[in-house]
């Protein structure tokens, strides 16, 4: 892929990058992507920081409920919600009907929300990325040594000044990490702009180029640009986070560090956070409504309900094949992930590999490289070879899914191996067992929960992987669930409903997997998302 970008007719050249900027359509898309990603990231952080602060630092009513509600939006890919939301926002759709009923909007000429696709995408992205940013902000806050804030307090600082001079700067590495994660996700989000027919972003341009089978080197240049950008942002944030490692003091038992607020204020704060969380789930609710709506036209809520679309999923050839395909691809990629993750983690943690940092760095790299880059790279690299995705994308899809989830798998295995005592292995070796027998009988049983949990998550995410699936699967026979959803959404009769039903299926798989793997790892909800 790299070759495609800088080598043309056997010559090394950077001309394509110049071309990228000169082509008005592409330059426009580049600007559009930056604008979109910047807007989404700033708004996401602006919401996530105060929510995280309130959740960590104050004693709030029903905190457990809030915590779950805040994380729910993670279980659906934004483009599935986008399909549902597009319907909500239609000129005579439910939102406008509601506004008309409330007398806010003129019934003869309701506003046409979809004329502002940019803001539609921004809102959906912000709501979807909020949980990820929230989790990272919570982690950033939790890492701050409280005695630093206490020191500032005992020196006379308090309130916003304390936050601005001590808390916020200390959160910065974590915030930067969260921000860059959201930025990369927003920058490379393919599904949402695609659903809103918004072409002024790089991801959609790349997608169309692949779809039209253009042998156009500017595509390579574009993807390379995205990749370089992501890697730079990713490593900067990692380096920054490592620089400020400060020893933290354990808190005295019984001191939670939560401030107690006057009750009315606590409930007010609760209400505010709940409102945001509810807004974030709204797209998901829209998906559910869509899937069960038999008739939903010119009304606020559907007036007839049905489960027909779920039944059709299994009969209809496009969807039935897609479900079967996705199960197969996901199972295969999860298995691949378990094997690779275990091998890499074992080599790194037990120090058996040369240059362990390099191996670790390689394994983490997919975090920084967006799915769209991986997918595009494969299309380019394997064109006109036996693995050409235009012929049969199965193997490439499996590999792409596996690579995307590998960093999380490796992390899960690290955690398992670090808890598994090396002394037990040594004892086994000392008693005469071979290294292989030791691994199977001693090491493996100890890390099994982590392995299974990681595998389940790899499986679930593969089921809902968007950009790889959209780009790599060309032929309907090989469509995975997400590509089928995309295909369905563009059909007129019942397409949106079936797409929604399919989306719910995926969300159920992911939600169930999340709970299961969290239980297995004995961790708190959502930690599987952290890096």
């Amino acid at each position, binding site marked *: 892929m790299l070759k495609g970008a800088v080598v043309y007719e056997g010559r090394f050249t950077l001309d394509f990058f110049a071309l990228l900027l000169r082509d008005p359509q592409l330059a426009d898309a580049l600007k559009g992507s930056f604008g979109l990603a910047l807007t989404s990231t700033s708004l996401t952080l602006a919401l996530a920081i105060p929510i995280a602060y309130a959740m960590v630092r104050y004693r709030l009513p029903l905190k457990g409920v809030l915590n779950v509600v805040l994380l729910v939006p993670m279980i659906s890919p934004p483009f599935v919600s986008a399909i549902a939301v597009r319907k909500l926002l239609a000129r005579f759709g439910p939102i406008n009907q509601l506004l008309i009923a409330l007398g806010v909007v003129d019934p003869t000429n309701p506003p046409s929300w979809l004329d502002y696709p940019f803001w539609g995408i921004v809102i959906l992205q912000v709501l979807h990325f909020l949980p990820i940013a929230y989790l990272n902000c919570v982690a950033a806050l939790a890492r701050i040594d409280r005695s630093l804030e206490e020191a500032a307090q005992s*020196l006379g600082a308090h309130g916003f000044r304390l936050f601005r001079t001590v808390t916020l700067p200390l959160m910065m590495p974590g915030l930067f990490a969260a921000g860059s994660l959201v930025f990369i996700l927003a920058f490379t989000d393919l599904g949402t702009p695609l659903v809103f027919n918004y072409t002024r972003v790089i991801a959609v341009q790349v997608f169309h180029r692949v779809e039209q089978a253009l042998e156009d080197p500017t595509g390579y240049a574009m993807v390379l640009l995205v990749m370089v950008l992501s890697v730079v942002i990713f490593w900067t944030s990692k380096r920054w986070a490592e620089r400020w490692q400060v020893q933290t003091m354990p808190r005295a038992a019984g001191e939670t560090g939560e401030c107690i607020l006057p009750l009315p204020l606590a409930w007010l704060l609760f209400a505010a956070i709940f409102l945001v969380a509810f807004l974030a789930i709204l797209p998901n609710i829209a998906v559910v409504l869509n899937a069960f709506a038999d008739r939903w036209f010119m009304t606020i809520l559907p007036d007839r309900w049905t489960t027909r679309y779920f039944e059709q999923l299994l009969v209809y050839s496009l969807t039935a094949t897609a479900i079967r395909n996705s199960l197969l691809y996901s199972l295969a990629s999860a298995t691949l992930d378990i094997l690779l993750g275990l091998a890499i983690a074992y080599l790194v943690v037990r120090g058996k590999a040369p240059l362990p940092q390099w191996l670790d760095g390689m394994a983490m790299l997919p975090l920084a490289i967006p799915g769209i880059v991986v997918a595009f790279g494969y299309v380019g690299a394997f064109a006109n070879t036996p693995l050409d995705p235009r012929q049969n994308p199965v193997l490439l899809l499996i590999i792409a899914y596996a690579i995307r989830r590998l960093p999380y798998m490796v992390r899960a295995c690290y955690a398992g191996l670090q808890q598994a005592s090396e002394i037990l292995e040594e004892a086994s070796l000392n008693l005469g067992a071979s290294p292989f027998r030791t691994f199977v009988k001693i090491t493996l049983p100890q890390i099994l929960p982590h392995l299974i949990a990681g595998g389940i998550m790899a499986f679930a995410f593969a089921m809902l992987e968007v950009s790889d699936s959209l780009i790599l699967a060309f032929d309907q026979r090989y469509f995975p669930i997400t590509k089928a959803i995309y295909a369905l959404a563009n059909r007129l009769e019942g397409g949106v409903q079936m797409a929604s039903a399919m989306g719910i299926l995926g969300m159920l798989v992911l939600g169930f997997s999340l709970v299961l793997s969290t239980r297995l790892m004995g961790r708190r909800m959502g930690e599987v998302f952290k890096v």
Partner: protein
Amino acid sequence: MVHPFRRLLGDGDQTMMPVRVENIVKWLGKTLVLRGITLDFRAGEFFFLLGPSGCGKTTFLRVLAGFLFPEEGRVFFGEREVTFLPPHKRNAAMVFQHYALFPHMSVWDNVAYGLKVRKLPRHEIELRVRDALRLVRLKGFERRFPLQLSGGQQQRVALARAIAVHPDLLLLDEPLSNLDAKLRAEMRSELKELQRKLGVTTVYVTHDQKEALAMADRIAVMREGRVEQVGTPTELYRRPRSRFVAEFLGDANVWEGRIVALHSEQVSVETPFGILHCHPPDFPVREGERVWVMIRPEAVVFVSDGSQQLPNTFVARIERAVYLGEATEVVARVRDIKVKALHFRAQDGGFAHEVRLQFAPNDLVLLPREEAATVAV
């Protein structure tokens, strides 16, 4: 009284501040951590809170700083009650165990932080930061960042940051516990010197009895949320009022005893190896009462001249002698009862198998018997 900062830091309309706490009770979750602490810190005093981990000393310090509010009791800075005043309104600067230096600020900015918060004029801030850094001997380190400093230097920055705001009360939470042994010994005398020069009322928390004995004006020994005894280092060491204090402050021989005769200047106590004549204790005793008898190893006298008739002299069989350099630690048995003693003069050729040991009545301390538990130091 004029605040000594005036002399040292070129400022001063402050006075040294006495601090008083009355009957502080504090729960943390379901644990009762402080069970009614009443203490007076005199103006300018270097006061130590000494106790094993979990005795509540750090919690008490946090109540003084305002990070925790007590369930019962009151705290006074001078005449002003501050019990429920938040930390930033107290002017009680704290030096944390792990220093809590702001990693994103230079040494200069760390020390200037409290002064900027107080919105002092720029020249005043510069003056005070420079003075504070000079006092802790860190001139020339202004532009460095905390992570570029050694542990000892970080400790000094934390100290400079606290004293720069001219606190009414300086709180130190085990400030030396993260330094290596040699540096710790150096910092002890340096800290003591600095505290004396500044004259700021200072409360210092530690579990290291050597630190407390070496630096304190007065010490409060804490145990399970209560103050066991308050006094000067010598009082506590030589006249402890409980077995816990006796053993926490240093090595001690403690034997069971029963009072057999009471006189105005002397009390006779029956011990497993014979009658000991002691000074009367501070607490009232009855004939027949069971007590502990305590003597420090270094107070045990090796009697060389057998002809002299001294009270409380016994023949002891030496079990082992360990050469420590400045002294030899001797473990002996008087009729099967173990006695630890320190012998300070070098003994060429080792000890004889048998020695005569004397316990001077003045050095024997009687302790009440209400507690059965032995507390390891």
